[in-house]
């Protein structure tokens, strides 16, 4: 697709007997893109392929108009990358490391130092920038990883599990930083995460992977709108009999966390009360669940044939 930020066409990658990616095709427009899926779904493999660090068995990948296999340096000069794993040199200071990575990305020395100061201040590490990285907490190290990824001001940045290992407060801070970065004009981000709630409210597009296959992709708003929200039912009484009653009336109830989730329409709502009367249970709550990326993902995993909106 002309003008696409990322264009992946029929890409397959196999490691031994494992299909890391199978016939993956997707076009992603500029914006904040969620690359979501469970561990081992092929997210990191896709990033490695996009950076030109791996060769696909089949297919082509284009990033910012450059073929990631033919022109990997053109791609890497325009992208930032924040790995999931720890990758910082513990014997360097925060400012030394970030400015060094800026220079390796092609910034002149003085510019790299200036930008390293700016970006560390932006990320809330102004006070700690002269300390050795080995003295940093997990949250500070994550922010240094983010700093080195954006120090050269790339138009596209890959963020691989940026909230990994963070406590709830640290995670929220990191997500706030990402929200702030997402507001920068002409800057796109690919957020790879298995924590699907991280992608909620942050991403305007999403690519969902499961076992190396695309199960959904496109605008988050459109995908959620197309996702039929389930109803949540909480009852007091014999749940088994109640669920059996719903099933007999042609519904597909699921028991999750002490609740019953079922797809209802105005025409089938009466089935809930009929089943409750039949089973002799009290209906304590009946309401619509909020459509989330996580809910959408779970639905698509169970019904993969519905995936693939463009």
């Amino acid at each position, binding site marked *: 697709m002309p003008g696409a930020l990322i264009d992946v066409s029929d890409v397959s990658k196999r490691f031994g007997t494992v299909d890391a990616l199978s016939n993956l095709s997707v076009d992603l427009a500029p914006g904040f893109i969620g690359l979501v899926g469970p561990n081992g779904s092929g997210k990191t493999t896709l990033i490695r392929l996009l950076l030109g660090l791996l060769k696909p068995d089949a297919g082509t990948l284009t990033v910012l108009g450059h073929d990631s296999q033919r022109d990997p340096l*053109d791609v*890497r000069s325009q992208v930032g990358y924040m790995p999931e794993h720890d990758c910082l040199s513990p014997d360097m200071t925060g400012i030394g490391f970030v400015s060094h990575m800026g220079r390796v990305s*092609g910034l002149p020395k003085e510019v790299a130092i200036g930008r390293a100061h700016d970006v560390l201040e932006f990320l809330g590490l102004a006070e700690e920038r002269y300390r050795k990285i080995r003295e940093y907490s997990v949250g500070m190290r994550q922010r240094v990883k983010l700093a080195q990824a954006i120090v050269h001001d790339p138009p596209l940045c890959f963020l691989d599990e940026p909230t990994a290992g963070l406590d709830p407060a640290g995670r929220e801070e990191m997500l706030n930083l990402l929200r702030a970065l997402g*507001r920068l004009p002409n800057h796109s981000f690919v957020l790879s995460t298995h924590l699907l709630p991280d992608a909620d409210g942050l991403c305007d597009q999403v690519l969902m992977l499961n076992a190396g296959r695309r199960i959904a992709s496109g605008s988050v708003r459109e995908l959620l709108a197309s996702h039929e929200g389930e109803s949540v039912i909480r009852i007091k009484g014999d749940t088994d009999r109640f669920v059996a009653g719903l099933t007999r009336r042609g519904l597909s109830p699921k028991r999750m966390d002490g609740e019953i989730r079922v797809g209802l329409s105005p025409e089938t709502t009466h089935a809930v009360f009929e089943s409750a009367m039949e089973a002799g249970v009290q209906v304590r709550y009946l309401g619509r669940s909020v459509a989330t990326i996580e809910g959408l993902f779970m639905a698509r995993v169970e019904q993969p044939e519905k995936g693939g909106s463009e």
Partner: protein
Amino acid sequence: MSISAPRYAAGTVVRTGRGSRILAIASREFFRRARAATLLSVSLTFFVVVTVIVVTVFFASLLGTANAGDFETVYESPVWPFLMLIVAASAGAGSLADDVGDRSISLYLSRPVHLVDYVAAKTVACGGWLLISTVGPGLTGVAVTAALGYASASVLLAAIAGFVATGFVAAVFFTGLALGLSSLTNRALYSGVAIFGVVLVLYIGGSIVAGITGNIYVPYANPIENIRSVAHGAFGLSGTTATEPAASAVTLVGAGVVLWVFALWRMRRVEVISE
């Protein structure tokens, strides 16, 4: 913590070229290695070599026989190779191993940097320290003896040529050795021990096997013997050595290059990003 768009996002910057990026990695690596162990071993090398040269040339000058061969004395002792092993281990053992160990290599290779650029930068840094240690002390010794007036200008010039030639060949070999062994592990300690182990095994084993078999090619497997032979030829000494000086120089440079290529091949197999 305040959240606002960083100021750096405004404006565009002309990016530096490939050479500047290599230089950035090389200079960072060079100064990273300027730690106590490296500085101590290099200082010790300077002290030992300069002292040996000055004392040797001083006594030769008393007899009025000072010549370029007197400067070569430093290579006859096992102390010099031992010092080079310490420098190679302290300055080169962690060159690649440290980056693989802390996985910062994944950041380098996700930048606009070829793998060969990365290894070349590490080579420049490690080779820089080794060149300082192999050539620097000899040239300093020549300068001191010149200042003290112990030798004539022609002798000093011949000695400079000898130190530069021998030092360059030794630096190539030890740099290749350090990088080759550093690429095999993610722990600098292991590669440091391996640097000593490989050279000592070749030195002792080569001497024993050569003594038993009498094969004239076995001494070429001994890097210390090769360096002595190169020094012998570079300083214009007469007499025979266990190996041919030119052949020894080719052997050392060839081994260094092969080990460098091996390091490059090994790094291509490193998993840059793990799932």
